[in-house]
């Protein structure tokens, strides 16, 4: 009897394998992101009227309006730069477009305040090209918009370029039969990339509204800084911090709804992996002018890194690096790799599920999107509320909290990377395996993973880099003595020797570059055909 019941139970579990695997991946997303956000709501309630009173003042609301307007300005500038540049890189005969793309894209993989630091070395009062005027300009809202626009425009460029590279060639060729390059670009290619452009704009807006390092460094008062100030230092008032994140929640929900409405299923189809093999559209007489403009943008984005390297070299910063750098690079790298592995695993299951329309997967994908577009302080404060308690103190006081935070914020990277490649692979490959008797787990490991390995690996690599560049969530809860490199650079920036800070920033950039180069070299050349 017991044996029969056991057999029936085993059979029932085997039949629900996909649901169970999905539930496990979903549990990770819910535990790391939904629970902190839900917990935050109850903390706000518990904080009481006194804490909520902070919202009755005018100042937080003015700060919020300023933050939203700055984010909108950065988004507009990033789209204005990134959309045409993405089109030029993906589909025209712009000279050296591959190298241009790499040079232009690299800064987006770095913590933005590192670039602000570089701009300071370049155009600050004592910078290589600096004066009173340039210094005043840099330490203003205009400077903030300029720095963040140059930092985030590669997000738009890369997403548009990937979408256009993945586009069916016949759509473009049919138009080129009777229309010139300009008309094909503006009437066919860019409109075809509209869902991607909308997604890129949402990503840039979310990244900007979360940004903490650049506004704090450039002394521009923004809303997330007000939240951060109440979690440490002289303004310490955690109840008020909980209350202050309240207005950010509808903002995050608004971004999620916008993403669903404007982008929908199109958001999965952003990562074309076909390469640049198609014949490019000739730019003709416009080629020199457009090449100059494009390369200028790319060089401008990389200039701050050159300035940092020069400052570090001239002031002996590199020589003093060993005594200042500590364990920070290893903390960064270790937690990023572990979190990225978790993100890739979650992404494999949920990304596949979302692409194949498995029930529940879309909802969990939406949850992951919400965690990403939620301003970083909200998620950070939520994580503190959940994990900073006696029962979980051991986790909270260790590097594990960084892994949890990274997984919460960047799970969407893995999900979307996998979903975009799964959509491009034939569903029959999986159905043939199911018909041959393979249950879900076996199909996942033996068929789905190998067939989509390139997308999973790309998602993993992207997640590593996103975790490495994270500052705005980690700064809220990094464990004592276990800060990741961006946090270490930021804390040293206030009172450390400038050449050493510059050297640390260069070390961070080099570490990111090495990870990217190693990742790209190890990435499977192409999906098996």
């Amino acid at each position: 009897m017991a044996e029969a019941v056991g057999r029936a139970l085993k059979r029932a579990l085997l039949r629900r394998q996909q649901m169970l695997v999905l539930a496990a991946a979903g549990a990770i997303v819910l535990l790391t992101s939904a629970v902190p956000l839900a917990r935050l709501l109850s903390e706000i309630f518990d904080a009481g009227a006194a804490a909520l009173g902070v919202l009755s003042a005018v100042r937080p609301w003015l700060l919020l309006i300023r933050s939203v307007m700055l984010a909108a300005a950065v988004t507009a500038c990033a789209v204005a730069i990134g959309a045409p540049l993405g089109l030029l890189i993906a589909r025209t005969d712009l000279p050296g477009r591959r190298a241009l793309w790499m040079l232009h894209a690299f800064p987006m993989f770095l913590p933005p305040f590192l670039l602000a630091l570089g701009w300071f070395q370049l155009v600050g009062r004592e910078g290589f090209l600096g004066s009173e005027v340039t210094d005043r300009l840099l330490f203003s809202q205009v400077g903030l918009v300029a720095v963040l626009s140059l930092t985030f425009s590669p997000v738009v460029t890369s997403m548009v370029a990937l979408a256009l590279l993945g586009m069916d060639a016949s759509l473009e060729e049919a138009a080129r039969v009777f229309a010139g390059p300009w008309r094909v670009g503006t009437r066919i290619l860019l409109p075809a990339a509209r869902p991607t452009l909308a997604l890129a704009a949402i990503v840039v807006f979310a990244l900007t509204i979360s940004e903490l390092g650049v506004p704090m460094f450039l002394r521009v008062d923004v809303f997330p800084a007000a939240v951060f100030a109440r979690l440490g230092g002289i303004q310490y008032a955690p109840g008020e911090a909980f209350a202050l994140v309240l207005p950010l929640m509808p903002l995050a929900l608004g971004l999620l709804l916008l993403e669903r409405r404007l982008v929908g299923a199109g958001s999965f189809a952003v990562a074309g992996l076909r390469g640049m093999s198609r014949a490019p559209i000739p730019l003709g007489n416009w080629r020199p002018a457009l090449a100059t403009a494009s390369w200028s943008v790319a060089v401008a984005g990389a200039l701050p890194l050159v300035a940092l390297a020069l400052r570090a070299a001239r002031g002996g910063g590199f020589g003093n690096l060993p005594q200042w750098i500590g364990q920070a690079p290893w903390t960064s790298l270790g937690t990023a790799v572990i979190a990225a592995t978790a993100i890739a695993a979650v992404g494999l299951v949920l990304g596949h599920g979302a692409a194949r329309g498995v029930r529940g997967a879309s909802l969990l994908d939406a949850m992951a999107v919400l965690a990403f577009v939620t301003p970083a302080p909200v998620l950070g404060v939520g994580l503190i509320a959940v994990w900073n308690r006696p029962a979980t103190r051991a986790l909270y006081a260790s590097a594990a909290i960084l892994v949890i935070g990274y997984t919460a914020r960047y799970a969407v990277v893995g999900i979307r990377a996998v979903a975009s490649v799964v959509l491009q692979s034939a569903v029959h490959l999986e159905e043939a395996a199911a018909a041959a008797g393979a249950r879900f787990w076996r199909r996942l490991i033996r068929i789905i993973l190998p067939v989509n390995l390139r997308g999973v690996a790309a998602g993993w690599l992207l997640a590593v880099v996103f975790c490495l560049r994270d500052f705005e969530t980690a700064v809220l809860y990094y464990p004592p003595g276990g800060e990741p490199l961006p946090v270490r650079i930021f804390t040293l920036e206030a009172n450390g020797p400038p050449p050493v800070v510059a050297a640390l920033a260069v070390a961070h950039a080099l570490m990111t570059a090495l990870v990217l180069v190693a990742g790209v070299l190890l990435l499977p050349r192409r999906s098996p055909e």
Partner: protein
Amino acid sequence: MTAAIDLEGITLRYSQRRVLDGLSLTVEPGEVLALLGPSGSGKTSVLRILLGFATPEAGAVRLSGEVASDAGRLLVPPEERGLAVVFQDLALWPHLSVARNLAFGLQSKGVPRPERDARIQAILERVGLGGQGHRPPGQLSGGERQRVAIARALVLEPRAVLLDEPLSNLDVGLKRELLSIFRHLLKERRTTALYVTHDLREAGALGDRIAVIEQGRVVQEGTLESLRANPSSSFVRGLLDDFAWAGTVPGNF
């Protein structure tokens, strides 16, 4: 005798559009039934319902008498139906060699290694690919890939093989050769098969019987001769006329 495949009153909708409309069909053990119909008639939906990738809104699917799907409920999941399939795009797993493609299903069913190897070797010899087991599918010619696909289906010794227009993209010479191989393989193993096609010549060459499907319903069943002798509707007559007009003789490739 219990039918190997029995579809009874199957109805299926995709977003309000009725794809199958009370379709009924039986395939006897060892029989090859060709399901013939134009694009959009619901042929592939029949296959998806049989495989368990779609659940009928109404009607029942029975496999050797066992109810596999019944009015909106999937009672037996795809991996437990004991079927095998050859898709139009063949769906050979690109990262696995020919032998591993064949081994995958046997491993899933827990067939021990010695038996597995023996069965793979035998079927590869039978389809003319002996000694080719180590090659990746990407290195095979179109005809070889077709042979691997049918071998991968038959090596499982399934309850029935479902073939979804596997020859539709091939030239006439290769099609003729492969049809001959398919027919011999299916007959010598007494394998039940449902062969979906829009091509009357393929249906006639392979099927013991032909079922003509139109707008989600089977409108006539019988041998090729009976269809030609007594077409039940203008639709069936039209199908036959198309081939007569093209100057081909159905069934004789």
